[in-house]
């Protein structure tokens, strides 16, 4: 139990000017705080993913059972006139692509374009690599490469976000609206939340890049880059989960 005291004394002997850096765990406050924040984020995404899974299951169950409200929700602007007039209930025969296939197969799979999303997932994962390289560069005082890799990371993140915007647009055109169905609400909320996290990360990377160009991101602030990196890797890992749970598992 005395290691803490001894370690601190030794530290103080070496370096009188740094009492503010005394830390009981030997980890900087900022880094500890970032880990705690990410721990909290885990619960945020757990709750969102659970809500998504429940909503998806309920949607498929109601759709395949022919719930007329749910079917009407999938039709958007394409509600047949006799349904709109109330002359008859909506039924599964009114369903358009891809909902008719969802109805037939009992899953939401017909919606996905797995090769496309795999590609954008790959892009996002590669951005973790460039993030590591950025941190490594700034730790060595190599500011040119710091800017190169920070820029690359931000660019790859932006490509991913671009892919998400394209995907959302496509799904929307196919009839999956935010307000129409329970599944639409859940899908856009979960993936949109992740997208907002990535966008926040891009903003942070952009700010770091700006600081670096102004000469204010030097070796002694390498930890700042590391912290942004922690966040960035976390967001990537969450995407691996979301991609698996939402797109790959039937």
């Amino acid at each position, binding site marked *: *139990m*005395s290691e*803490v*005291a001894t370690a601190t004394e030794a530290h103080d002997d070496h370096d*009188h*000017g*740094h*009492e*503010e850096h*005394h*830390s*009981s765990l030997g980890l900087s*406050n*900022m880094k*500890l*705080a*970032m880990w*705690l*924040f990410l*721990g*909290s*984020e885990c*619960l*945020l995404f*757990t*709750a*969102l993913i659970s*809500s998504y899974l*429940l*909503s998806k299951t*309920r*949607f498929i169950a*109601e*759709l395949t059972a022919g*719930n007329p*409200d*749910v079917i009407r*929700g999938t039709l958007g602007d394409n509600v047949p006139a006799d349904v709109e007039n109330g002359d008859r209930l909506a039924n599964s025969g009114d369903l358009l692509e891809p909902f008719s296939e969802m109805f037939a197969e009992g899953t939401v799979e017909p919606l996905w374009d797995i090769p496309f999303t795999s590609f954008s997932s790959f892009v996002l994962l590669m951005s973790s690599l460039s993030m590591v390289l950025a941190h490594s560069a700034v730790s060595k005082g190599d500011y040119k490469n710091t800017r190169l890799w920070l820029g690359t990371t931000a660019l790859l993140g932006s490509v991913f976000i671009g892919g998400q915007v394209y995907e959302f647009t496509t799904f929307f055109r196919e009839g999956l609206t*935010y*307000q129409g*169905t*329970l599944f*639409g*609400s*859940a899908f856009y*909320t979960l993936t949109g939340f992740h997208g907002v996290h990535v966008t926040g990360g891009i903003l942070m990377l952009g*700010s*770091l890049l700006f600081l670096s160009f102004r*000469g*204010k*991101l*030097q*070796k*002694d*602030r390498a*930890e*700042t880059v590391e*912290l*942004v990196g922690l*966040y960035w890797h976390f967001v990537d890992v969450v995407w691996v989960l979301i991609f698996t749970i939402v797109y790959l598992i039937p």
Partner: protein
Amino acid sequence: MTLALPPAEQKFDGSPLGALVRPRTSTGLKGWLTTVDHKKIGIMYGAAAMFFLLIGGAAALLIRIQLAAPNQTLLGGDAYNRVFTMHGTVMVFLVVMPIGAAFANYMMPIQIGARDVAFPRINAFSFWVFLAGGLMLNTSWFLGGGANGGWFNYAPNNGIAFSPSAGIDFWNLGLFIAGIGSLSGAVNLITTVLNMRAPGMTWMRMPVFVWMTLVTQFLLLFAIPVLTVAQLLLMFDRNFGANFFNVSQGADPLLWQHLFWVFGHPEVYLMILPAFGIVSEVIPAFARKPIFGYPFMVASGAIIGFMGWGVWAHHMFVSGIGPLSVSAFSVATMFIAVPTGVKILNWVATLWGGKLLMTTAMWFSVGLIVQFTVGGLSGVAHAVAASDTQQTDTYFIVAHFHYVLFGGALFGFYAGLYFWWPKAFGYLLDEKWGKWNFWSMVVGFNLTFGPMHILGLQGMPRRMQTYDDAMGFSNWNLVATIGSLILGVGTLLILVNAMISRRRWIADGRPNPGPDPWDARTLEWSIQSPTPEHNFDYTPQVTELDDFWHRKYAMDENHNLVKIADAKDLAQPGNGEGVHLPAPSFWPILLAFSMPIIGYGVMFSLWLTIPGGILMMASLYGWALEPADDLDPKIDDHDGHGELVNV
């Protein structure tokens, strides 16, 4: 992080991140608005909680007056719904939680021997954003008529179809905003406990209050995001037309109950644990004994923290969750009574054989032990699912949670106020008024909530706007109302006491109570009262549990306690020359108050989110680029660096 001592005249290799000037005043209104001092922030948390206590208390008295006699018409059905909803919401989120935060902020850093929390500006932000959310919630009285869905705001009643007025939106967005403060506070305080302990302050030398703060903040860290998700889903449903709780689209409204109670059960423990921590400090001080079974006190608190996550569905026994779930949660709930029982046993064992000094703080602690035990026992009654099925949604439940939260938590907080008042304000609260305060609260409290056990078992439903004389509820309701009026006066006596004591202290020209008026045990008593702005002149070196006590007392060869030093001689003088403190900042309050602007925008007009968003982004960047310090430009420490990512 900014607590460098002056010899640190190191030059920083990069140019500092300075773009904006920091405020310099630490006095007056501006001093309070821009402060980053954990003690001032703690006091503001306490003051805000007392303000909200007046609002929540007024709502409670309205409820009791409405129910004093059968067939009253003071409040109509809709008004009644709003009043009890706002009562519960305000009391839970804006009174009990912030008083806990007040003690954690003020006392925890001093008890671990630190000069401030890990992130002073984030600390200020946590407070202001809590206040912003709380005020926003309460503007619903004028702008939307008050929330009316109950404090747990069940779906699908909380949807637009059943609750078209804006009251629910205020509940949702106001608490969402206040929750951001709880979350940032949790990150900050956990970092502080884990990382900023004085040399030698090992895990098992931390005061029990510090331990309970740590457990509480971990509960907040993991519980708040779950509530946040529930609130976001509801916001998307109500304000943007999503379908998460839309039953006609196949949604399952039980989702709300699960999300809410996964948050809500840890929530009840994070309301009570700070009070447990406080009485664990007060009782040893006045029983003149160390706390009985310190490791068990710590472990039981931590176990409550873990097990608190596995019992949420006992709030849902009648929601149709199936026999297997009911059995599992029923057993888990019975188990969680064990660590709680350990705590009660240890307090009693600490009292046993002690030289009891029955101060007001001690009386309030004993009040907690007794009343919390009553509430705990009725809680175990709810763990039995068959019995709970009878009691759900009756006044029995109302009696139960008031016994644990008012008779338990609030009594514990009052104990803390009487105990630590001299440390914060430099004068003692009057003991005679204190006894009046305590006994009027005990009498009023038990008269109010004791009869509710009977009313509940007779079948009186909670949230019932009125009742007929023929139902047989009239007599006990009248008793409860009389009790509540006594309780209302009793609760306010602490404010009266504070004013009278202060005036008397000055009029009589009494001396400063000194660093250690109670001859107590922990580090906060080793510094002057009121606490100097920099807390410690030098970092204390800790060698054992209750370190300060052991520096005052030792055992002689016959195992008798002998005084070896006087607190006045041991205490740090409080002159603290050359201590460098973090400078005040405008950004926390600006960032905090940008959020309700966005919240109002979501409710009333999305255009408002634009100025709100601009203010928010400007505050974030202003914060991140704020210079380390302007007060003493020779010292260039690293404040501000890296906070870009951590606001």
